[in-house]
């Protein structure tokens, strides 16, 4: 009887240990920024920056000083207004697509003015910026913009911003800025 009881206790301990190991959050889940969800058209406020989406549109190609850049998908361009709060900072942006995939701002927009990923946000000064993403068109509706500090520091503020409710307009011809 003692042996049975000992085995039962051992089995319970192994099962409890296994359950803890399986449900223990990994570093990827445990150390994340604190993400605030922002409704369409609202101003988002994080510890070091604030931002608002002013509009969005699609471009099939980008016209750059170094030449035209085309894509297998489309270029999604978001117009933003952002500012720092207590200190100067830079920002990074990702588009969380409808499928959950994560698209960083495209490096192929190099040369365009007012790029979010190269600008500094100054405290109290609103900056008008654009974030350009290269992605398949079906990732746009149902997606959201994630604004965060570069390299996603853990426990820092980030904004998950819903885009405008109207679908983005398509500019058929590349537009020079």
């Amino acid at each position, binding site marked *: 009887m003692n*042996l049975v009881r000992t085995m039962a206790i051992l089995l319970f301990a192994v099962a409890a240990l296994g359950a803890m190991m399986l449900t223990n959050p*990994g*570093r*990827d889940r445990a150390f994340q920024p604190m993400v605030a969800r922002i409704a369409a058209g609202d101003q988002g406020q994080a510890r070091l920056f604030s931002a608002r989406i002013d509009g969005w549109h699609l471009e099939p190609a980008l016209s750059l000083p*170094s*030449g*035209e*850049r*085309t*894509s*297998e*998908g489309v270029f999604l361009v978001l117009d933003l207004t952002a500012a720092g709060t207590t200190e100067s900072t830079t920002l990074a942006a*990702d588009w969380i*697509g409808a*499928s*959950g*995939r*994560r*698209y*960083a701002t*495209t*490096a*192929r927009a190099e040369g365009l003015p007012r790029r979010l990923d190269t600008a500094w946000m100054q405290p109290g000064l609103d900056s008008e910026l654009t974030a350009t993403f*290269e*992605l*398949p068109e079906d*990732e746009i509706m149902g997606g959201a913009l994630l604004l965060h500090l570069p390299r996603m520091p853990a426990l820092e503020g980030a904004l998950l911003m819903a885009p405008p409710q109207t679908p983005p307009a398509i500019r058929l011809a590349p537009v020079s800025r």
Partner: protein
Amino acid sequence: MTSPEPSLLRRMIRRAIALSGIAAALLLGWWMRIEAARSPDLLPEIRLGESVSLGRTQLRPDSLTLEDGRLVLRALAENVTGETQSSPFGIPARPPEAVIGDSVLPTPEIVLLRDQAPLGQLQPRLPEEISMIWTLPEDWRPVPVTLRFSRETFKLRDNLYGQASWLGHVPAATLTALPGTAP
């Protein structure tokens, strides 16, 4: 007050359980060594048109040609992860190596076929046709070229932080072909 001596049967059971664990560990180790010896480390040899997994990227070499004294590999590269990859050939980047005889050519220039812009990022679900361009030595004569591909290993929970990581490069495949002329 002392507890009574366990019966002979109980002692035998305990020792048998302990012995069976040791025997299982020994047998498993022995079997793993046999399995490792049975499958020699032969790299798969792929042909043009066949895909190879490089970890974050799936690459399909389509053609190998000579163009203006340069060796050009045209390929289709696809990001198979769920996020933008800024270094499609791993960190540190290890694009395919071109080997002629015993010498390895310098790192290739990689551009998009579409607009000749450098390959900076690969977006998920957007495969890109790319050209890898090696500058050849002046005295080069057409001989078969071997391309060596390496793959990054994905680990869901690494040993250091317990986070998902791409770790290290291991040889993935080779491709040997005689460069053709560009169409």
